[in-house]
């Protein structure tokens, strides 16, 4: 086939752009429904945010749309070890939000009564005494209480990425690494092909699952504006120590978060302002010292524990901090997107991928995905989120 500049020429029912957790899951569920799928990844599998995250999941969001979506998504996520044959090392350690202001805890109480309880995921509102009793290692100075969500937990990102990768290959999905998409061919307002630096695929469907890069690549290939912006976040990990921290701690005031992995490493970060754009994958002294300072303040016993490694990755932020899935009627036929998870791609991605695959194959829009359609950015009908962690 001469029209493609690529060396490898293929035909497929769908092309997925990006081989992170979301792209691999979309490819896998499409293949399960009988599609032939090609995945194009500009670096290596999982090289974006899928292997740079903290590996935590929660069902507690600040609005109905996301919470309902998350309840189903987490059920899916927690079942993946069996489905994929790779141990996702799931652990329901819970999330613990520490609050230092009365109005913050009041907000949580309100959310709990109005949203979480009715949906069957009540949180426990803890007094300072209860907090001290259950989590004695936390310095409760200045705190007014805490919120504990026992339904939330942790997983191992690498194994789930590998699980989707291996099972997708089992179903005949072709994954090309180091293959950067250059253009999407459109004729009569329909997708006809996708070409990368070394692959040309004749196809009717293309799914953009490029995480933080989705906005950039949709603009470049199809001149579609989708408001997904990268924000760099830094994160670090300590040496393994015996189990000390039995939950995932978020200080709602300082934006510090901390958890301990099953291997014993303490993983955490502090979210500072800034970081917008594709900053290099580096780290800053400002962040490192702020993280260490706040950590030691909150949990003094961690002072002697040693930081072993630090790195950074991108959040893929949308204006309403919620993901985008499906397609817009104004786009060429066959263009789909699943991205913009704003830091929740791993927890929500697998379930969203299954819904999207069903939509692509059968044309069915599940009611649960309706609020997340891309048209909302044009109509201004955004999702209101009050709690972004």
């Amino acid at each position, binding site marked *: 086939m001469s029209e493609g500049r690529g060396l490898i020429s293929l035909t497929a029912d769908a092309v997925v752009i990006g081989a992170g957790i979301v792209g691999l899951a979309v490819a896998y569920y499409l293949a399960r429904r009988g599609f032939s799928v090609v995945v194009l990844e500009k670096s290596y599998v999982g090289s974006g945010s899928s292997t740079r995250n903290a590996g935590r999941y929660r069902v507690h969001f600040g609005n109905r749309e996301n919470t309902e979506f998350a309840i189903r998504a987490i059920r899916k996520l927690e079942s993946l070890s069996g489905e994929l044959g790779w141990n996702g090392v799931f652990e329901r350690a819970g999330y613990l939000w520490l609050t230092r202001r009365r109005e913050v805890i009041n907000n949580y109480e309100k959310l709990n009564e109005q949203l979480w309880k009715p949906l069957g995921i009540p949180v426990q509102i803890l007094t300072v005494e209860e907090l001290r009793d259950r989590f004695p290692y936390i310095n409760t100075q200045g705190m007014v209480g805490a919120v504990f969500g026992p339904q939330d937990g942790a997983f191992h990102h690498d194994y789930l990425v590998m699980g989707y990768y291996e099972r997708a290959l089992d179903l005949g999905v072709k994954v090309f690494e180091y293959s950067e998409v250059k253009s999407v061919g459109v004729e009569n307002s329909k997708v006809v092909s996708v070409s990368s630096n070394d692959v040309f695929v004749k196809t009717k469907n293309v799914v953009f699952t490029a995480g933080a890069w989705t906005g950039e690549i949709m603009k470049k290939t199809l001149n579609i504006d989708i408001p997904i912006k990268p924000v760099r976040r830094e994160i670090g990990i300590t040496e393994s120590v015996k189990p000390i921290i039995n939950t995932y701690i978020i200080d709602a005031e300082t934006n510090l978060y901390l958890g301990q992995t099953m291997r014993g490493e303490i993983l955490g970060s502090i979210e500072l302002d800034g970081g917008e754009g594709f900053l290099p994958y580096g*780290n800053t002294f400002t962040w*490192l010292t702020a993280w*260490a300072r706040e950590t030691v303040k909150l949990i003094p016993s961690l002072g002697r524990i040693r930081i*072993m490694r630090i790195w950074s990755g991108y959040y893929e932020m949308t204006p309403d901090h919620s993901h985008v899935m499906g397609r817009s009627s104004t786009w060429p036929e066959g263009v789909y997107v699943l991205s913009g998870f704003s830091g929740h791609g791993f927890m929500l991605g697998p379930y969203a991928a299954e819904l999207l695959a069903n939509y692509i194959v059968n044309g069915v829009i599940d009611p649960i995905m309706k609020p997340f359609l891309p048209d909302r950015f044009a109509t201004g009908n955004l999702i209101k989120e009050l709690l972004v962690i």
Partner: protein
Amino acid sequence: MAGLSVAEELNKLGLKVVIVEGEHYLGGHLIIDDTEIKDLGCGSEFIGKLSKEISDSVTVLTGVIFDGFLEDAVIGHSRDFSRLYTFNYKYLILAQGFREVPLIFPGNNTPRMITGLTMLKLTKWWGFKPRRVLVWGSDDWAVRVAMNLIQTGIEVYLGDNSVTIRSDLYRDRVDALGIKTFIGMNIVDAKDSSEGLRLVLENIRGKKAKRQRREEVVVDVLVSAVRVPVIDLPAQLNAPIVYAPEIGGLVPRRGFTGDLGLGNAYVIGDAGGLLPEHLIVRQARVTALSIGAMEDLVTKDAFDKELVDFKRDLVTTNSSYYNVILRFEQGLQGSGYYAEPNVVHAPMWATAGSIEDVENALKSANRQYLCFCEDVTLNDVLRSINVLMHGKEIKVRVLHGEEEEYKSLRLPGMERIKRVVGLGTGPCQGKLCLINTNLILSFIYQKKPSEFGLPRIRFPEASIPMATLAGGE
């Protein structure tokens, strides 16, 4: 020694120099080396002299670990964790030398395997006196470790699966000192017992060898003196790491002055490729003068003359080193492209010295540990490659690796292997396993080391307690 030498030269030029040393003493491994080093005399005496010469005019920070590079600071910390340092400099010279790495053979998960430097410290400083040891490795350093040990009255064997003793400088000394050798032999099995470590050695090339030899020996300690250049900090700086077996394997690509091509960072001494000590002293002068020339402290001519002299000496004494650096600087026929050679010998893989041994060595892959922090064996790694290749059969054609199909076959990179088996994710962060694994895999599959690559080597160089970073608030 490289660090002290370059500090002295820079100081002579009138530059303000700070030495950052992680140990509590200066001089690195030479501090404990009492053998006669070519052109320098006794290593420890040479270091003593050099340290004295610089002590008045150079700021020396001992017991301070250089952690590496953040976007807004370059930092270090004291070994007692009491202090955090930030470094501001115009030029950075990395002189971290070499690191001895664990040997890979079936049964290498034994506490009786320790490195040469540790062995010398234990015997000379702490009174450890084993009866019998096997020193593995036969380059300059390994032979000197053996020479040092035999001086203390220990019964010493020297082994390596190279064809001959690799050290040109000290080859004659081995026989003269009565060191028994197992050269051209693989360690094919090992078992710990109360008597010691029982090692079974066989000749390399298996049945194809002209002379068949099989030995069993029981030693108290197996000393690994196989060394690799320390590339952590150049790698943190994103300097390209390339394979050059003539100078110790994976090294940062740099020029004759040690310039990493980053504008202000240099690497000298063994960290930039293994080099005999007397040439390191010369190299230090070249590096210092190149900085001096940039700072207008010496004339360009003075620097050029020194560089030409250094190159001339290299050509006559270490032509392979000269050739490698020339290829680093100019690339293939001046194109800038450095063509990596194939790996024909991974010195740390004590169980396969030649390509004919690989098949046999792989039979015991599940007893050969690569990563000691996370207990990852060679077998785990090979299985992960199988999974990542989705079970695609890879035939290793020993002699015809250049076939088209094989060449186009893309094996998974070390980054993905790491994510499957956890190799290099423990406390040492891959310092003891990444290079070993890369070279052994490249050797097995007959691929260039750059095709496997190395996982990203990240800040910090050594782990730092939270409280040290948090400061005294």
